[in-house]
């Protein structure tokens, strides 16, 4: 796909997603948690644009409110994971030696825990909820960002202007913050965009298992979990949230790809 195509499509989908997440707390077609048993399991267009669920709640309104929850958890996880991971990566790259070795082995250890599995472990110790979901998703992202930052930073550290800065008497910390970080910020932003998509997928998985937000807070994953019981009678309940998740993640991935091509001109040849 041409680069501007990806950028436009990804940007448009992501903008729609962001806008929905911002609007939903103030306006949805119906109150997302309003129960109306008389209106239960109505197909799309019969009641509301996307129908109603087993408690008569409006599916579109729940999806909109779910966007807010999904995006806020995803953004918090990625910010946390990126901040900790980048700090560890910078430290490892500038200190080298034993510090580097220890930090990177520690990252191997963290990487051994798939996010759903670490969420179950954390939930057993801390209980389920927003914080547990964020902690579990962020934990998995720390090794991703630390490895990326470390390799990018080591590349920057070989440049002449870093040698010049060192000769001018700047310490490791100042070099890391003033010379390395600004030069690798692009890589980190690209990775953050892609990880945002992964965070949304993981959050959906967690709430599908009941390891995410507690009901009645609307979440895409739990809408899918609830739909299993009614899959024969009300297939729209299983289709709408899945399409929404896939569409949102697709938008973020396309945007991430397009940004990555912009940051790294060598990849502009359609690789």
């Amino acid at each position, binding site marked *: 796909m041409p680069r501007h195509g990806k950028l436009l499509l990804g940007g448009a989908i992501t903008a729609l997603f962001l806008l929905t997440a911002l609007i939903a707390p103030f306006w949805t077609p119906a109150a997302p948690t309003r129960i109306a048993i008389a209106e239960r399991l109505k197909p799309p267009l019969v009641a509301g644009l996307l129908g109603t669920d087993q408690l008569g709640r409006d599916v579109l309104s729940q999806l909109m409110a779910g966007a807010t929850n999904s995006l806020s958890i995803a953004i918090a996880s990625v910010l946390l994971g990126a901040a900790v991971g980048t700090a560890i990566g910078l430290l490892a790259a500038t200190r080298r030696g034993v510090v580097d070795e220890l930090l990177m082995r520690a990252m191997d250890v963290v990487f*051994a825990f*798939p996010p759903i599995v670490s969420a179950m*472990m954390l939930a057993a110790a801390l209980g389920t909820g927003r914080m547990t979901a964020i902690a579990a998703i962020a934990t998995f992202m720390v090794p991703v960002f630390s490895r990326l930052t470390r390799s990018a930073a080591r590349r920057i550290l070989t440049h002449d202007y870093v040698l010049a800065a060192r000769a001018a008497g700047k310490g490791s910390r100042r070099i890391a913050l003033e010379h390395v970080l600004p030069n690798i910020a692009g890589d980190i932003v690209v990775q953050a965009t892609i990880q945002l998509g992964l965070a949304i997928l993981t959050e*959906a998985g967690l709430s599908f298992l009941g390891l995410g937000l507690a009901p009645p807070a609307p979440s895409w994953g739990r809408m*899918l979990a609830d739909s299993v019981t009614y*899959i024969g009678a009300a297939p729209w309940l299983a289709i709408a949230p*899945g399409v929404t998740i*896939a569409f949102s993640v697709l938008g973020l991935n396309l945007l991430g790809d397009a940004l990555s091509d912009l940051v790294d001109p060598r990849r502009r040849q359609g690789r």
Partner: protein
Amino acid sequence: MVAAMVKRLASLAATLAAVSMVIFLVMNVLPGDPAAVALGTSAQEDTLAALRHEMGLDQPLPVRYVHWVGGAITGDFGTSATYGVPVRGLIADRLAVTLPLAGMAILLSMLLALPLGILAASRQNGAADWIATIFSQLGVATPNFWIGLLLILVFSTALGWMPSGGFSGWNDGMINGIKQLFLPAVALALPQAGVLTRVTRAAVLDVLSEDFVRTARAKGLNRRQALFRHVVPNALAPVVTILGLQFSFLVAGAVLVENVFTLPGLGRLAYQAFTQRDFLVVQNVVLFIAALVVVVNFLVDLLYLFLDPRLRSSR
């Protein structure tokens, strides 16, 4: 080569030890009393104390850790509170579902992704390339448990061709078992195939631009010969690496997909133990899964060493 192996083995042992410590600390040091959780809020103080003693919770932490890890190394994971049977047997039974499921998913994803990725790269910007790009973008963005729901909706509810879930064990015959695991394996495989297609395409494109490919063509090999004799073998290393890295996602995916299809696998065991607050089982299954991820990555690392001779001397 031997030195590189020894170093990797030592690193493997250290990682496994650290993984077990992390699990033990999270499950035992964070606030919360497993005995109180197991008995509920109305438990008497002396019953609580008795259960704590029985669970070994009155021992100092390092003693408990050594006891647990020592047991785990010899295959003794303790006894489950809810199932009343040794955890070892539980894990073994559930592995008989999860390992074939994961194996089928990996196989299916490779069968889909390798031809598609190679074809896309060899005809860059052609129709196959477009199909591969759309397939991999959609695959990566779609949650595997939702694909599972759609497969149930189409092949079980609407068409009635396939069972909608459950697993009757391998005693009913291989074919029957494979049939019951087929839809779940497809649900797990499609997102994996999305990632693999993309990586295969990029790896093949990278190798295609190497000088030795031009040399091979100059020597008179046609496109196809050059592709399969020189390009594909050299493109395999990054593909294998990604396959290893993706194993962690495959395991996480198995937890979800096993729940969609109510398969009695390792992921569903962990999840059921969690909902029943059987934390000993959670702790041991998490250890088992994390160790599996570490060992698979170790094996992939070794395979990589084998596939790419340049790495044998360095590191």
